[in-house]
């Protein structure tokens, strides 16, 4: 632009003012007071400019922060969604394993049989109402009801297994997966206490590990 910077204009004015002072001192007396006003104005302008700049800077910083946080939010949302899906897949696996026919199959594989008649006592008359019978080895539950079908077995089951392998110890740990897929041999009394404390320290008392934000 063809406009002179304000500073130059001011100096030009000042030199012009000083030159004419000698010749026409009486003609323009009011001009004397101006330089002091201008000096004050300069400070004000600088202050305003500084304020403007800092405000601009602050707005910029806040904006950059908001934008960055937004990306972080998106990332965390995705991570949350992934964890929800992982949780869903694991919950599904547990539900399928909890179904009566799966439990029955697991029980048969570890050699359990159907219970025989239970004995009952009458505590008032101190009499045996019915006597108990010994369960017979041949009383294996029948297997007419098919095991529940996974809707998409290969993806759901396999992927969770991989995820769980890599997860820290605790609920998602490889040990937990082992108890899910391999039926426990009935010795969980001693080991369970230890698992709980380990899970407690790694999961801060919760059941889901804290999200990893380092990626």
């Amino acid at each position, binding site marked *: *632009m*063809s*406009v002179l910077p304000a500073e130059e204009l001011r100096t030009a004015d000042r030199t012009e003012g000083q030159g004419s002072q000698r010749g026409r001192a009486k003609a323009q007396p009011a001009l004397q007071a101006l330089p002091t006003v201008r000096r004050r104005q300069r400070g004000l302008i600088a202050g305003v400019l500084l304020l403007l700049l800092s405000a601009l800077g602050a707005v910029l910083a806040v904006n950059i922060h*908001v*934008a960055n946080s*937004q*990306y972080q939010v*998106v990332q965390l949302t995705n991570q949350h*969604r*992934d964890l*929800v*899906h992982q949780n*869903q*897949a694991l919950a*599904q696996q547990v*539900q*399928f394993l*909890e*179904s*009566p*026919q799966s439990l*029955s199959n697991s029980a048969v594989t570890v050699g359990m049989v159907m219970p025989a*008649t*239970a004995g*009952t006592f*009458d505590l008032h008359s101190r009499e045996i*109402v*019915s006597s108990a019978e010994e369960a017979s080895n041949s009383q294996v*539950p*029948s*297997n*007419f*009801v*098919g*095991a*529940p*079908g*996974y*809707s*998409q077995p290969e*993806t*759901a089951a396999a*992927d969770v297994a991989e995820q769980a392998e890599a997860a820290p110890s605790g609920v998602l740990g490889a040990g937990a997966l082992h108890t899910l897929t391999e039926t426990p041999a009935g010795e969980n009394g001693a080991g369970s206490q230890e698992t709980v404390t380990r899970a407690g320290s790694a999961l801060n008392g919760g059941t889901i590990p804290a999200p990893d934000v380092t990626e």
Partner: protein
Amino acid sequence: MARTLSLRMRIGLAIVLAMLVVLGGRLFHIQGLDPAGHAQDAVSNRLHTVELPAARGNILDSQNRLMASSADHYDIVADPRLIGEYTVADEALGLQRPVTIEQTAQELATILDREYSEVLEALTAEEIHYSVIARSVTPEVHQQVMALRAPGVYSEPVSERTYPAGSVAGSVVGFVGSDGPLEGIERAQDEALTGEPGERIYEVGADGVRIPTATYEETPAQDGQDVRLTIDQDLQWFAQEAIAAKANEYNAQWGNATVVDLREGSEGEILTMADSETVDPADPAATDELFRRPLALTQSFEPGSTGKSVTFAAALEEGVVSPEDQFTVPFRLTVDGETFRNARSHADYQMTAAGIYARSYNTGTILIGNQLDDQTRYDYLRKVGYDAPIDIGLGIDGESYVRPPEEWDRRQPMTTQFGQGYEGTVMHNVQLYQMLATDGVKHPLRIVDATIDPDGTEHPVASEPEQVFSPETSEEMLKLMEGVVEYGSAQGAQIEGYRVGGKTGTAEAASQTGGFDGYTINFVGVAPLDDPQFLVSVTVHRPAGQFGDWDLTDTFNDIMTHTLTSYDAAPSEEESEAYDGFVGERQDYPW
């Protein structure tokens, strides 16, 4: 010099100002007035609306175990207008590598396990902007598809049903097709299970990332209600195994085992409705059509001797007979020119009414039933629920037909007394014994316990009890039923420690072509009789073999014993109250 500069500057400033005014005016014209709708177009181009699907409610059993649930799945869809060649950064080459539509289709086909040609067709369809490539894929597959970053390929979240219990109560739970629920609770309770979908509106930049400070509106979805059934999943499984074993043993067409709760406060709740074969809701097509819906409602048959209970209860209620009244019961009896026989030949017996019921003699039943007129007996049949559809909350009407007395043929006045000449379902049969066991009060059978809001508020399903028989009649009927198990036709139903009562039934099954072929056999029992808590009904249709070969009491015994122990029912403290069957000291007359 200064003057000319100032003048030029002023002119320049004026021109700049004028231009600014023009530009400002134009900006206001375009952005503010927006006559051509460009600004609106731009916003709507950036605006992205995503439907937030409402989670479909779960179906739970009586112990809140999951029977049907929903998982997040995705539909993979394409906008063919946006599909084209695109480039991806190839890390190995360090270059941008072009990807053609064919390559995209090939990669999608591999990930989605679809035909290449189908995928390519979906991607290149003309003049549409929405074509579905794959429905309901798992989150893992969805991630692989999104990792391709192919422009024009989107995903839409959908809810996929999972059935953790598989075919345990499969026909009760029902299933969902691609266009909506098809059967069972999924269909009957669809309104409660479905929620209100929500919506999320936001602006996206050209790179597809949301613009942080721009418009963002979200209407949250209203999730559907959970539905809790009266079914006990574990007991259901046990009963399904037991009835399947029985149907298998007799090579029958079908079998059904039903357990009903009679305990105070939950009378009429169906704990188990087990069929010999049951659909797995995850794969309904794999099961024969007959077994996709509950047999206890879809199959009607002549009840046979279990229907004698209506005649006896009506006679007791009307006061025309009492359990110890004496009758001379012949093997053969001719009434109005029609002859009726018992199942096996025997001499004339001096019997009580209780004995006739226990041994299930047709001739004796006619002697008792004929003390009531046809219309009265017909009215009682209707009172207990026959000749009217029965709905237990599944949206399926169990059918029953009884002709009115004026349409009866010459035999029907007598045959209807022992459960022939009319039809009903297992549920009709069960409803009859339910009211006989609970002081004569009919508690409508039901399978939905409550609907549960997402915040946990429960809405129990109400039922209206109705007094049909007097408590005295009910009490006498239980004593008659005890005789059946103690010395009558169902001695195999005895359970050590508990007083058990019941009634057997056998009827000829109507053939498709007219006439009869095969039989329907059933047994309904109640225990413990001093305070009836559970009712178990076992029915088997068209078993192979001859009349008299079959026995259902072992299956009843297994299921009832399991139920009593599962629910910690206390053994009976009282002695049997069954009446003597024969007049005099001797009770062991041959069959």
